[in-house]
């Protein structure tokens, strides 16, 4: 045998120190009060008005961004699939390139475009229209999320779409299926694993972000990520922060289980 079990020892140690103990400590702090006793208060704090509002808004904006990404990405993936070989390579290159730029700089770009003294307002006033308040709105945050995460939706969908056997589509047409029918019964069902990966890769970062909302929401719009971040960095209340993180993790796990139900391949396409 090539293998010796003990080769995995450093990895096991790393899992324990880097994953198991840290996650356990979130659970520990989440169920501990500031005075040191056991409590559910940090978990139940999610029901406070501010926190519920932030969680609701996070879910709403994450769903909207994910749907927009999906609607934008699917046609792109289909076009990519049908384009010629050399052109295909070029188009994928074009989609991957922005991913290599730091996402803070990409988000900053939208700040520059949307600000009161920014580029878009300069164009608007040049045409003679009044200045618009584009920044610090939920719309700006959605725009930033779509911009940052769109490639993560296009690539997995393209990966599955490009593997669909053309004969299947031709067979559908030969057997008299209409275009809509072919999409609904052949193409989209075969694309589900890609859609599931794409949705996971957009929805979870969108749900948990605090950076995009901070930069494009001007600190006025709080998502659940912002609330948790502030508990750790501003208020130094790790107990509350951990408790809220635990609740957020429940939402992450629930959304993953829900998505896995659609995907019979069991997440093989995740990366």
């Amino acid at each position, binding site marked *: 045998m090539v293998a010796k079990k003990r080769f995995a020892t450093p990895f096991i140690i790393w899992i324990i120190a880097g994953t198991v103990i840290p996650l356990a400590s979130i659970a520990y702090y989440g169920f501990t009060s500031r005075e040191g006793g056991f409590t559910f208060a940090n978990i139940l704090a999610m029901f406070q008005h501010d926190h519920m509002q932030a969680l609701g808004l996070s879910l709403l904006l994450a769903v909207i961004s994910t749907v927009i990404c999906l609607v934008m990405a699917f046609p792109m993936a289909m076009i990519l699939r049908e384009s010629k070989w050399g052109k295909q390579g070029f188009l994928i290159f074009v989609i*991957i390139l922005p991913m290599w730029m730091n996402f803070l700089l990409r988000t900053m*770009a939208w700040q520059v475009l949307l600000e009161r003294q920014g580029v878009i307002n300069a164009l608007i006033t040049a045409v003679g229209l009044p200045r618009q308040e584009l920044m610090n709105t939920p719309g700006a945050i959605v725009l930033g999320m779509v911009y940052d995460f769109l490639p993560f939706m296009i690539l997995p969908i393209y990966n599955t779409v490009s593997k669909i056997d053309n004969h299947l589509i031709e067979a559908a047409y030969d057997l008299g299926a209409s275009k809509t029918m072919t999409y609904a019964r052949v193409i989209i069902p075969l694309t589900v694993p890609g859609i599931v990966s794409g949705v996971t890769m957009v929805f979870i970062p969108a749900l948990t972000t605090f950076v995009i909302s901070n930069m494009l929401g001007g600190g006025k719009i709080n998502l659940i990520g912002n609330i948790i971040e502030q508990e750790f960095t501003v208020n130094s209340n*790790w107990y509350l922060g951990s408790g809220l993180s635990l609740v957020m993790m429940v939402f992450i796990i629930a959304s993953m289980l829900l998505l896995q139900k659609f995907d019979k391949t069991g997440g093989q396409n995740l990366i």
Partner: protein
Amino acid sequence: MKKTLGRIYVLLIMLFLYLPILTLIVLSFNDAKSMSVWTGFSLHWYAELFQSRLMMGAIVNTFSIAILAAIIATVVGTMAVIGMSAMKPRQENTLMAFNNIPMLNADIVTGIALMLFFLMVSWPRGYMSILFSHTTFCIPYVILSVRPRLNKNTDRLFEAALDLGASEKYAFRKIVIPELKPGIMTGFLLSFTMSVDDFIITYFTRGAGINTISTLIYSEVKIGIRPSLFALSTIIFVVALVVLITVNVHQSRADKALSAA
């Protein structure tokens, strides 16, 4: 008709992806600090960028951490793949489940969890804590890239080498490592990219006084956007462009050589 529609769609997506970046590039050469008025060509934002000690320190930190984290993750991950192949399927599956956690979990949770860990064991937060954290989230990518390369065939080749009189070490070096090499390379590059790109986990696991490019950008943007950040964007964009083109050209040449052979 359909073709034209498709082209228009691709064009719109490309405009959406690239207009913001192009805006930054144009503004980085603007003489004034204004974000909307062009007052003339100038390179002084680039000068400001290169004179900033903070920025130079952050660049050094970012790349040294990325290289070290990628090397450690590659070694630990590759060894783990070899070790796991000797385990019973149940043991292996348990380990793989743990392996997937940092990949599937939200970055903010991973970051907070690691931060609490460092506080609990009173590990001072700084360069080493960032390096440890980055290695933690890089290992899963290495394992997922290397594992598919290790299969029955590798085992057979290894045994054949032993039968033909190779020592275990020699057979390992000459058979197993070359078989795994493409996966190891992918894992290393993925790790490097993930590390350079990371902000959220670094944000929670760094101490005061140490910055990577990402955390420095974040703290500067909070104070107020300066055009030197546009200059930084331009440089990063050009570097990414050059690297990706080089890789693509290299690859298509390799493909051609392969199909010619």
